[in-house]
Every structure is written in C-alpha cells, then in structure tokens.
C-alpha cells in the first residue's frame, strides 16, 4: 500500500515572470515524520520552493501536493506551522512571548472572541517545550535573536502542526544559538514526530540531526543523506559554482 507523503512535488516548474524560471523540473517527496534540510545559495529558489509547498504559489507546470491534496487547496491548513524569514515577522510589535505564541492558536482555536481554556493550556505547553516558560510574559523585543526564534517556533507548535516549515530560521542568530536551535528541533522531531522542513542558505547547524539534505539551485542538485554529500559541498559557497 502506498503511503501518502507529507509533501510531494512532481516535475514542478515555476517563475514569477514569463520565460524566467525560478525553479525547473523539481521532484521532491517528504515522508510523514521526516526531518529534512533544504539548502542552496541565495536566489537559488529555496523560498519559492517553500511557497509552492505551502500553497502560497501554484506551479506553472507539474503539481504540488500536501498530504495528497493540491497544496493551494489543502483542506487542513491550520495544521501547517510556518516560521517565515525573520524580516517578515513582527519582531518590533510590543508583544510578549505569550501573545506571540497565542497567535499560533488562532486558526485552530477560532477567530472571534477570547481564547478558550484548552487553547491557553496548549500555548503554555508550547512555551514550555521551547524552554521559555520563565520569559513567557517578557516583551519579545527584550529577548535575544535565538530566544525570539524559539518564541516563533513555539507559535508554530501551538497550532499542533503536522508539518513544520522554517525559512532561514538562523539568520541573525549567533553560532551558539544556531546549535541550540538545531538541537531543539531535533528534540521536537523526536518527541512530537512532526515532519520538519528546515530551509536555509547553509545547513551546518542541522547537518548532524537531519535524515536528508536537499540542495536546490533552480533544480534539485543533491538529495540524500548528509553523509553522502561530496566533501567539497559542505562548503555552502560551492553550491554557487
């Protein structure tokens, strides 16, 4: 019996303008419960790949499926956890950690009126999972870059996601926090069994935790275990060549 993959891209091509493809003939399958890193140079199509997977863009050619359904018409969107690039997040808003994480319960808990008790419990649980319980009522802007990313990961977790997608989560985060973030994701993957797609221009921090590494430069140029990656490609700048 064929198991439905969490993500399935079949020969997908896409461009924002005619005759200027950003991605060409991309074929990718992510099984449920996998922890996969997607890396590649800036401008190589990683963010576009994420947008296609999440149904924010429709393929020009080919098809993009989420749990067997067309991604742009996916019926269980509230089970998608997404950590956008940091520049797109409201890090300047005067929100506390709890307020940020509560935003992650909106789709699952209902748009109108106050939060229910169960939702508040799930928010507290998500904050605890990322180790921010003691800072739960602190303003987000008083936290370090790494702690802010943890808060947004907790926000994604609060929606009880079946797929967690992180776009450049380590940008602007120091090396120690990158390691700590990667270890946190590994632990969440083990404890929750959630499918994780980690997208970044470099993959050093998560290399030892992920089962698969996918390198993208307009198309997929490598898809396998990090151990199978040719040594020279561990230098991310090589992907530019």
């Amino acid at each position: 019996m064929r198991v439905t993959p969490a993500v399935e891209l079949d020969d997908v091509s896409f461009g924002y303008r005619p005759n200027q493809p950003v991605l060409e003939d991309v074929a990718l399958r992510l099984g449920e419960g996998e922890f996969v890193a997607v890396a590649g140079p800036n401008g190589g199509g990683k963010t576009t790949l994420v947008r296609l997977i999440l149904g924010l863009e429709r393929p020009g050619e080919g098809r993009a499926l989420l749990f067997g359904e067309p991604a742009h018409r996916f019926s269980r969107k509230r089970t998608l956890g997404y950590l956008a690039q940091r520049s797109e997040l409201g890090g300047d808003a005067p929100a506390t950690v709890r307020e940020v994480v509560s935003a992650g319960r909106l789709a699952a808990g209902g748009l109108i009126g106050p939060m229910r008790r169960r939702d508040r419990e799930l928010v507290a649980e998500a904050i605890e999972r990322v180790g921010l319980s003691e800072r739960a009522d602190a303003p987000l802007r008083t936290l370090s870059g790494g702690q802010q990313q943890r808060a947004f990961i907790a926000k994604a977790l609060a929606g009880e996601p079946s797929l967690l997608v992180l776009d450049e989560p380590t940008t602007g985060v120091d090396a120690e926090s990158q390691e700590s973030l990667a270890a946190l994701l590994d632990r969440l993957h083990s404890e929750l069994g959630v499918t994780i797609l980690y997208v970044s221009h470099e993959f050093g921090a998560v290399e030892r935790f992920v089962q698969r590494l996918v390198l993208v430069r307009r198309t997929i140029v490598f898809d396998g275990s990090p151990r199978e990656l040719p040594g020279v490609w561990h230098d991310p700048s090589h992907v530019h060549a």
Partner: protein
Amino acid sequence: MLESEFMRLALGAGAVVGVLAPAVGFFLVQRRQSLIGDGIGHVAFAGVAAGILLDVSPVLTALVAAVLGGVAIEVLRSRGGTAGDQALALVFYTGIALGVVLVSTAGALNVDLFQYLFGSILTVTRADLVVIATLGAVGLATVGLLYRALAAVVVDEEGARVAGVPIGGLNIAVATLAAVTVALSMRVVGILLVAALMVLPVSAAGRIAWSMRSTFVFAMAIGLASSLVGLTISYYADLPPGGTIVLVAAVVFGTAVAVSAARGS
C-alpha cells in the same frame, strides 16, 4: 463648562472618537501603515465635496467615500502590483484633487468646508451624537471581537496566511474600520488632523507599555484623555478644539518618549 449643552455634546463626541481612533489606529501603527488614516481622510474630503455639491449630508457621503477609499487602498496593496506607499499616494492625491474640483464646482470654498477640514465639534447636535455614539459602539465591538485575529496578523501575517486565517477579509475589516473612524472623527478634529488621533496615542502607549494588550488599552486611555483635556483647554483658552486635542496628544507622546528614555528602554 458642563452647564453648556454644546460642551456636553462636544465632550460626548470627543470621548467616543478619543477611544475609537486609537483602538483602530493601533492595528495600523503596528503594521506600519500609520499614514493610511491620512490617505482615507483625503478621500473623505472628496466625499464631503460631493455631499455639498449634491446637497446630501456631507458626513454620509464622506463615510461612503472613506470606506471605498480604504478598501481601494487595501486591494491595491494586497495585490502587490502597486507598492503600499504608491497605492496610498494614488488614492490620497486622487481624493484631494477630486475634492477640490467638486468643491469648486459647487462654489463652496468657504467656511462650511473649513468645518470639515479642521473640525467643528462645538456644533455637534444631539442627532449627530447619537450617530457618532452608535457607529462608535459598533466599531469598538467589532475591534473587540476581532482583537485576537487582528493581533495575530500583526505578529506574523505570513504564518497566519499559511494556517488558513482569512487575511484578506481581516485587512478589509481594518480598512473599513479606519474609514468609519475617519468619517466620525471628521467632526471632532477635522480631516487634516484625523490621522494624528489614530497614531499619536498608540505611539505614546508603545513607549510605556509592556505588551500588546497594555499598549492597546493605554492608547485608548491616552486618546480619551487627550480629547477631554483638549476640549477643556480649548473652552477656557478660546482655542480651536481639533488642534488643541491633537497638541495635547503630541505633548503626551513627548512625555512618554521622555519617560521611556529615563527608564533606559
């Protein structure tokens, strides 16, 4: 002061607008769309002009024009074909140009028009107050019901979109609320100053608050206090009410900046 009915009516209208304008402005400021209130105000000017020309209530035509303008700005912005600031500029200048042409056609470049540009809170009637209070209550109730959803969009719009939250509908709701606020505030501070009452209390609150919710509540309190104190000062010092209200809000903002700096935050 309170023995004069016109002041009691003015304080009533000022209180409603003083609370509503920052409540709606909060979501505009947090999304870095502070000037949208100004843009909608200029479209409302075209609405006032159309009302004068057609001999229909200028407040009603301003409300219709403001809602259409607010939705137009949001649609242009969300489609991405026009950058947010260009969308705003397009609606802003078209609105004021249309207003000038219509007013000139109606031969109404006079004192009546100035009431809408600079406010005329001392001429608010009982019927006006009923309309302002009713629409204000509906606006505040809508903000209250949608608070969590609107706050979630402020925190992470793209994440909410991915999770299936109807971002387009919520953004249109904010634009419509902003338009209603502009139309109601027109009588209090005037079209030219309406955006100030939506922005200054929120900016001041952001300097001294510790969370989104406290910023939201402080902003409404500062808006209310600015309105009531501004009206009182204008009554005793014989100053124009709209300008005095906004100057009080500006002083509160300056004080909040000083307090924030003194605390080292």
